[in-house]
């Protein structure tokens, strides 16, 4: 009896990819909105040159989202950017799902090499701090506490930003 060996094409993880795509849109729009209102995020991006681009991408050919600094804010570019000045990679769909859902913080993800960076490491450090602020506004403290080394203070302004993001900020990106 002869055994037939066939090539195996593993299934596409459609559900997880869909979740990642949705979180990318929420996160990107939240960044666009928060970068217009939060003083600390404004300060973090102030030294970046106008037109500076960054993308977050799931390797090898997964979803990605881009941001561009324009007029002192970060503009959400969706999947329009193919390359960027700073590229933040998620090693695979599982890693991206874990970080985006959010079961794991960016520091742990970098430590476990689930995320890597191509580009200026100083700007990447500033972006990580801005990401922590956006997450602290998006998620309640009991979740954020597990994800970051120090929870940024939820000031009255930030509480207002949270309400704004959940009502119109994410939808309008303003």
């Amino acid at each position, binding site marked *: 009896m002869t055994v037939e060996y066939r090539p195996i094409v593993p299934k596409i993880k459609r559900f997880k990819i869909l979740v990642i795509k949705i979180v990318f849109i929420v996160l990107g729009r939240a960044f666009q909105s928060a970068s217009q209102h939060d003083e600390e995020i404004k300060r973090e991006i102030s030294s970046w040159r106008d037109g500076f681009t960054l993308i977050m991408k799931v390797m090898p050919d997964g979803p990605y989202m881009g941001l561009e600094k324009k007029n002192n804010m970060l503009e959400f570019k969706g999947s329009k950017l193919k390359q960027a000045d700073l590229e933040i990679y998620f090693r695979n769909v599982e890693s991206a799902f874990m970080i985006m859902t959010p079961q794991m913080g960016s520091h742990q993800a*970098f*430590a476990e090499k689930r995320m890597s960076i191509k580009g200026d490491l100083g700007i990447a450090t500033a972006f990580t701090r801005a990401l922590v602020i956006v997450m602290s506004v998006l998620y309640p403290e009991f979740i954020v506490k597990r994800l970051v080394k120090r929870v940024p203070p939820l000031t009255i302004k930030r509480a207002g930003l949270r309400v704004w993001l959940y009502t119109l900020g994410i939808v309008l990106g303003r």
Partner: protein
Amino acid sequence: MLPSYYEFHNPVKIISGNKALDNLPSELEILGAKRPMVVTDKGVAGAGLVKTFIDSFGSSGMTIGAIFDDVPPDSSSEVVEKITAIFRQNKCDSLVALGGGSVIDTAKGVNILVTENSDDLLKFSGAEVLKKKMKPLVVIPTTSGTGSEVTVVAVISDIKRNLKMPFASTYLLPDIALLDPRMTLTLPPKMTAATAMDAMCHAVESYINLQKNPMSDAYAVAAIEMIRKNILTAVSDGTNAQVRLAMANASTMAGIAFSNSMVGVVHALGHAAGGICHIPHGVAMNIFLPFGLEYNLPKCHENIGKLLLPIAGAEVYARTPESRRAEQTINYIVELRKALNDLCGLPMNLKQAGVTEDKLYEIAQAAINDPSIVMNPREMDANDALAILKKAFQ
């Protein structure tokens, strides 16, 4: 505690011991190299080490393609481009870095340009940008501190654009790290002390930060113990070859540790202070180490406590209650700094190192953007950095 996930990578062949240098020609041959280019500096050449190096190639049948001995203390892209041109002109096929951190980083920079067949180093700056296997690179450290012979990183200044370009890629790992005690015998006491404290910081920070893992821990602990046993003799009696070799090994082990688990606030502050006030890196490490540990105490009291064993020895560790070990670790480092200051005048604070108080704010701002802080257990903001700097000032 075992991390939920970790990676560890060190493919560098370590060759260590008496007359290790004489094995270099045969090692290059194994790597397929026939015409190495040597990158070094005036200090190394002046100490007679280049002559020892050339002698080791005697009767080997190998030609040294060129020797460039003018690398400045801070490696720059201009020097990298100049060496690259010589490498191409003399049809070299491999690189040997004979020197300290600047020489090693310069050789790594040259390797990027000759491998990528480019003249623009900036294009390859950043993490994981490089995609090609490089030309054979052998590193022979002439200081015991940077660990650059086993790390994935290089930092090169772009003087024209006034920026420091960091490079991080596994392709930057040298093929061989060659440790020959003859190469560090002439290192002056103060530089011996400063570079040793750099190695100490690599090991200590790698043991307490977020990316630590059992493999890097093993290298870190072994490095610290070896430094503790040899550092004072290396400074007071530099001609002791056994002690010099031990320090070279400790530095390499510390390099392997931090290359796999990264560093933390001590390095972030050190890089910033070095960039703004031009304090030698090892001096900055010596100044900031106890303050960095003190800052991290609330987050990693237990891990700092465990370091008491390699830093102070088994007897001290056994008689110190567990709850006091972390503080004792810091005390022992403070004592070590005092001993080094007495022996060779190694500065213990920023004022002694020539920093003026008006620079502290600028250093704090630069430190929080240094990539080293990402893996530090505690999130350091500009206010925290400034508070540490004020403590370290005098």
